[in-house]
């Protein structure tokens, strides 16, 4: 067992994903560097990772989101960028954890469409979102009866 000393304590890291026909991750990175004031910015193939003091990171995130609000998406990240336990430079292959992002990025254009149409929607319109099927499933009592009928 070795002692663990965390790096970047007291900081937050946020992912910024861009899926826009008008903006690339490098455009976003240039804008982020202009306003970063010492906050760590890492450009990636999907957007950016921003690490620093929470207030400064939120300020940068809000400024960047304003550039293309319907096509820039933000979420928290637990690890700082380049962490040897997560970074694929150390792991020698694709790192785990991007499957969810990959799946959601395929659908994100639908969410962008929803965000774009939101201002023109009347507040009294009741939304009908895709909901789980209400078809009844086999209940336990019925299953028990089936089992008993087979046993007898």
């Amino acid at each position, binding site marked *: *067992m*070795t*002692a*663990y*000393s*965390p790096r*970047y*304590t*007291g*900081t*937050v*890291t946020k*992912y910024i*994903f861009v899926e826009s026909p008008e903006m690339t991750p490098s455009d976003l990175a240039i804008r982020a560097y202009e306003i970063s004031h010492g906050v760590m910015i890492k450009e990636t193939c999907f957007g950016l990772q921003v690490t620093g003091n929470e207030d400064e990171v939120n300020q940068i995130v809000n400024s960047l*989101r304003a550039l293309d609000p319907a096509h820039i*998406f*933000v*979420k*928290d*990240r*637990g*690890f*700082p960028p380049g*962490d040897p*336990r*997560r970074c694929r430079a150390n792991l020698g292959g694709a790192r785990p*954890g991007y*499957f*969810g*992002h990959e*799946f*959601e*990025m395929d*659908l*994100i*254009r*639908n*969410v*962008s*469409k*929803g*965000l774009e*149409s*939101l201002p023109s*929607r009347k507040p009294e*319109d009741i*939304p*009908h*979102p*895709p*909901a*789980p099927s209400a078809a009844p499933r086999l209940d336990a009592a019925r299953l028990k009866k089936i089992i008993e009928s087979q046993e007898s």
Partner: protein
Amino acid sequence: MAKVFLYPTTSLILSDLVARFGHTPLSAALQIRERIQTPGLESPPLQITPEEPKKGLKWAAVEVPSGVRGRMSLYGPMIDKAEAAIIINNADYSFGCMGCARTNELIKFLIRKRDIPVLDLEYPMNENEGVEFVAAIKRFLDGLHGGEV
């Protein structure tokens, strides 16, 4: 501003929409960050230590596998803090080993048992569904305390 539990807890779409509409998303990253930034003994990759399954006993019985209890030590405190929840039911990527599958069932059960407002959805597979999906989330979040309505 309400604390909104997300399922899947790593969802980018939910995390973004909840924060965008003025509430606090409770996602797995916050719990991981807390562990990553706490000094102690090296326990890669997620700094999950043998203490976690013990903490998980608050939400899962002792005969439940330690994998479930360890995961519940991450998600349990967020479920307890949550004031509302948004659940996406067809998140196939969140299915993993038996630990994950049983944890997912337990998370949904505990959320429903909390008796807090819950929005049940599925991922939008086309643009029309996307429009309704976003509108439903906005409407749900506006109805919570600290929302726009």
